[in-house]
Structures are given as C-alpha cells and as structure tokens.
C-alpha cells in the first residue's frame, strides 16, 4: 500500500505519529539558530520525547537509535542538522554538538508568493501520479502555502495531467543523482546481451513519455543516456560518491543528444485514412514530400515500437536499420505466439 492510500477526507491525528511529530518539532525548534549547539546527551536529557522514554525505562540503545532515525527524518524533510566541535573542547572533549543554521531552514523574509503562483505550484504537485514523488510534492506545497495568500476563486479541479513512473528504479536513481551516489545496474540494449553498467546519475529526463537516465558512464568514461525501461535489475550502489552534476554538465549531455537526434532521420509512407495517418497529422499542409513523411528520432528501437502499433499501414523507406528493427520485432512476436 502506498502512502497515498491512507488519505481520506478529514485531517485527523494518530497518536504514534503525533509523538514523532512533536519530537521532531522539539528537536528542530531547540536546534534552530542556537549557535552554542547541544550535545547528544543534552538533547536526550532535555527533549520531552526522549526524556520521558528514559524515565519510562526505555533502553539507552533503543533511544540512541530513535535519535539517529529522527535526525535522518529531519534530513529527508530537508532540515540540515549540522555538527561541530567547540574549539575549547578540542583538547579534552571531542563530543559533537548539534545545531541547525536558521538560514537553511527558513526562506529569506522577502520571499512571497502570489495567488497565481500558489495555483501553479498546486498544479505542479498534482502532476505526479502514484509515485512517492507525489508525497514530496504535496509536502512542498503545504510549506509553500505559508508564503502566500489564499487562492480564493481559482479553480484547480479542471486540469490535472499526470506523469507516470512505472519503472521500479525511478526513485532510487533520483536519490542517487541528488546525493551523488554511484550506482550499478544491468542494462539490456536491444538485440544484445545484458551488460552490467556502473554510472554516476546526473538527471532523469523524460522525453516524449520515455524516462531516460542522463549520466556519466564510469566504464566508458563518457556521457551516456540509458532508457529506464531497459534496466533489468535492481539498482545497486558501488559505495563511491561523486560531485552532483552541474547545469553545464547536463547541458552538454543535452546538446550531445540533440545532435544525435538531428542526425537520425526516418522516412516512412502511410496508408491514407488510417490511425497512423491521423497520428502523424499527415493532412497538415506540407507534411508529405513525394508521398513520404520524414522526421527526426532518438532511438531506432523506440521508434520501431511506435511504428509496430500501426501494423502494415506504415512502411519504412529508410533507414534500413529501422525497417529491419520493425520487421524483426514482428517476426519475434509471431514466433513467440506460434
């Protein structure tokens, strides 16, 4: 069951979550902007949630673990718990002190959002279908609402296009790109064997409905794009980390792909009046040259998938690799269903 399944109409509170929320809030409020910081002992002794647990006889080990989990939760929620060691403590006592820099926690004072911007944010959060990203997006909107005025009279209900993510590795790859974590996976390129790849994920890019991983291929020492749906294993971590990708790096990858797409030109003929004819919008003036339709494409096998949906109403003129890919796919499927 996804987290979304727990949603209902009215906001109510469950007790266990309530205790955690209070503990997290107490931790955050105690540590924010408190430059002197607190040691772990001090926090465990003074935050009500831990204090009461200790008083109730809970084991130190369990409380330590809870503290670590709480810190992790705060980090996941975007709150930077930092540690430092006091200069005066350096010689005799090297205990870490915790604090949260207030500028990492709150927006600058002049940040405001207007009603239209809030409406756009709500729409942006709604486009995530099912994936746990919708949870993150909703939390963000809740926080951002503190920056603006209510959007009275703006109707959001009409328009909610959805982004689908049916690829199992999606979230893990996004995390790896965010945190600079090197990963490995098995990849099945069409018409070839499964190979193990080691990459540094930069960005997940959706082009015309296909999710692609833009990354640095550690083995090839080059920029590569991998289609998420061709990843056929779980995502593993190598234990190595890297500097997360810069805008420049991602832009370079994009240019390389664009150049690649510009080079790929498909030429097809389509039977008039068919679904394919409508799909490629061939009634549009100038769409056909000498009865043929030409267009750029990214990947031979992806395009072959698309074209196979139209059966014999589409015939590939060129390139030969595309014609073969379409044909081989039909032959393979026919064999598999013999």
């Amino acid at each position, binding site marked *: 069951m996804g987290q979304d399944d727990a949603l209902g109409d009215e906001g109510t509170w469950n007790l266990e979550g309530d205790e955690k929320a209070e503990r997290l809030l107490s931790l955050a409020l105690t540590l924010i902007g408190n430059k002197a910081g607190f040691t772990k002992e001090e926090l465990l002794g003074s935050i009500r949630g831990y204090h009461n647990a200790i008083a109730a006889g809970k084991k130190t080990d369990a409380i330590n673990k809870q503290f670590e989990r709480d810190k992790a939760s705060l980090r996941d929620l975007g709150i930077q718990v930092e540690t430092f060691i006091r200069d005066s403590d350096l010689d005799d006592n090297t205990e870490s002190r915790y604090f949260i820099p207030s500028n990492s926690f709150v927006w600058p004072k002049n940040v405001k959002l207007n009603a239209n911007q809030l409406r756009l944010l709500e729409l942006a959060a709604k486009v995530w279908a099912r994936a746990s990203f919708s949870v993150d997006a909703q939390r963000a909107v809740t926080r951002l609402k503190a920056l603006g005025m209510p959007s009275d009279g703006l109707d959001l209900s009409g328009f909610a296009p959805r982004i689908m993510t049916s690829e199992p590795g999606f979230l893990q790859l996004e995390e790896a790109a965010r945190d600079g974590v090197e990963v490995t996976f098995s990849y099945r390129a069409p018409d070839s064997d499964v190979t193990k790849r080691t990459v540094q994920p930069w960005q997940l890019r959706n082009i015309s*409905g296909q999710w692609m991983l833009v990354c640095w291929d550690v083995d090839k020492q080059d920029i590569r794009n991998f289609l998420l749906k061709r990843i056929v294993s779980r995502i593993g971590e190598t234990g190595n980390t890297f500097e997360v990708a810069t805008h420049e790096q991602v832009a370079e990858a994009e240019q390389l792909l664009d150049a690649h797409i510009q080079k790929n030109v498909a030429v097809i003929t389509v039977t008039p009046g068919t679904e394919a004819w409508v799909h490629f919008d061939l009634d549009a003036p100038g769409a056909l040259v000498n009865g043929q339709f030409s267009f750029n494409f990214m990947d031979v096998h992806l395009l072959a998938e698309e074209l196979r949906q139209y059966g014999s109403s589409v015939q590939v003129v060129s390139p030969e690799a595309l014609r073969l890919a379409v044909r081989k796919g039909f032959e393979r499927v026919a064999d598999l269903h013999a």
Partner: protein
Amino acid sequence: MPKLKNVLSGDDQFNFLISLIGLINTAGEIHIDDAAKQLGMSREAVREAMSTIVVAGHYRSDGGEVNPYNFNWGAFEQDDVLCWDNSDVFLGAPKISVRQAAAIAAGLSFLRSLPEFASEKDMAGLVELLKTAQPNASAPTIRFEIGSVSADIEILRKAILNGRRVTCNYTNQRGEESDRELDPIRLDPHGAVWYLRAWCPKSQEVRAFRLDRMRAVAITESARSEQAELEATRVDELDDRVYIPDEHDTEVLIEVDPEAYELAAEFATSGVPKIASNGTLRVTIKVGYLPNLGHLIAKYGGAARVIEPAEARQIVKDYCLQSLGEEVSNSQSEVSED
C-alpha cells in the same frame, strides 16, 4: 479544495506543524478557518497542531521548560484567531527539501512544456525560488519535456478550464468512426500518446479517448453536463490507468519484461504485481476488444507475451504476420465487426 491526509504519518504531521508555524509567522495573525483552508486541513487538525506546537521545546537543566512558541489563547478563545503571545525563535516560512523542490520543479517543467503555461509570467519567479532550495549550482535531478503538442490539446485544455462541451470525430478501437459530443475532464500523457478523460453523454460514463484518434475537435458554447461537473470535482480520484475494466472484457494472462512494464501498469486488473527475480512478471489484463491485443503486444517486439487464452495468442500472431505482409489463412482475427 481537497482536504489533506486522513491519518498523517509523523513526517507529514511535522511538515504540517512547521508549515502552520510559518503561516502564522508570515501572516502575523490568521483566523483558524483561513489557516485550515490554506493548508488543506480540518479545523480540528489545526487545533490539535496548535496544542502540539505550544509544548514543543526542551527542559532546562533547572527543570524549567523552554517552549519557543507561546500561543495567544485569549485571541483564540475570543475570535478564533491564531497568533503568538511571544516567540523566542524567529521562524519564517519553512524552506522545502531538495527532493520536494525536485518534485515541484519537475512538475513545473512539465506544465511549462504545455503551450498555455509556457508564457505564464509567474512561472519564471517560481523556478528561481525553487533553485534556491537546491544545492548551489547543481542541476535539477528531474526534467520533463512533452515533445510536440498538438493543437487539439490546447483546445481541450481550454474546454476543461472553462467547463465547456466539445465536439469531435472519433475512431473507436474497433475502427468505427462517429461524431461525438464529449465533456472533457482530464488530459493524460501516456508515453507518446495523450488520452482525454471525458464524460460521454451517450454512454453516461467517464471514458478514456486517444487524442490521435480524434479529428475536428471543436469547443462548443454549451456548458458541460451536471454529471461531468460532478466527475470533475473528483478528478484526482480518477483511475490513472487508461483502460477502465468492464465486466464484458476478456481476461488475458500476459508476461512482460521490464521493457514492457508500462503495459502492466496501465492495463493490470489490480495494482502492480510483484516482480520475479528474473525481472519478468505475469499479470492478468482485461481487454474490451480482443483484436486490439495485436498492436498492444506487437509494439514491444517480444518483451510482452500473451500466455492465454489461445485465441488471444492467435490474434497477436496473425497481427504480426499481416503486418509482415503474409497471408493469414482462416484467422479468428478477421471477425467482422459486430
């Protein structure tokens, strides 16, 4: 506006608590109903949250309590107004986490790729704001590009936002063409294909329509029907699968490799099933018009296979052979339309 969660997790409660604190901080004072509305929670949830906020903090070594936020109960009891009596920590509106920013930014880039949002002047400010929530100079972890968007999407979007009926010519999955009246509710991109969810006055239910099977889409002067308006208020609850199963459907057992998981995600009869260790999964899909299986399965070039019934396997095989230009003798897929 939809209410938020029913039973919130501890993390979500915490998110709500800091959002509420931020809201009161930015507003100075705010009526409890306005706060509830703005944050999408019930009035009771806001009251519960306030009682958590005022006790959050830590014990001093002398046993006293440090509670950074003291709520002005007087103002609340008299006027239902939320404001602080005094607060030791200045806390503005809480920033959002990197992942939250990524989720929203990707949603925005998705909206931005739609023609009507591309020129939204408020969009640029939001994108800048979200950048400040990301680590310095790092690229967004997710990016969305729709690709070319047909003029029909624009018309349908306008119809949805203005609550109008549209007319079009539609070729259904059996290849039958007819002029239709539809009350549009939601647009969904699925891969390279867009679907429209619309209330169909003729069949008196919400159905999915492929945009590439629509022609001559035109917006009318008539408002959507009452039923369509009712469905539009529940737009978020619409099943994300494009095919809504019907009791007259044929159940077909298929096997899919990762390259064809999307097929399972869109057509599976319930949830997404567990994946076998070799990456393939078996799932039952429901098909309204069996001959459609041909293009659905052939598309994947072997990554999707029909296991049973035999009739369905035959249909897929015949579709492939016909597409290859081969004679198909005595085939069941050549049924005349009923």
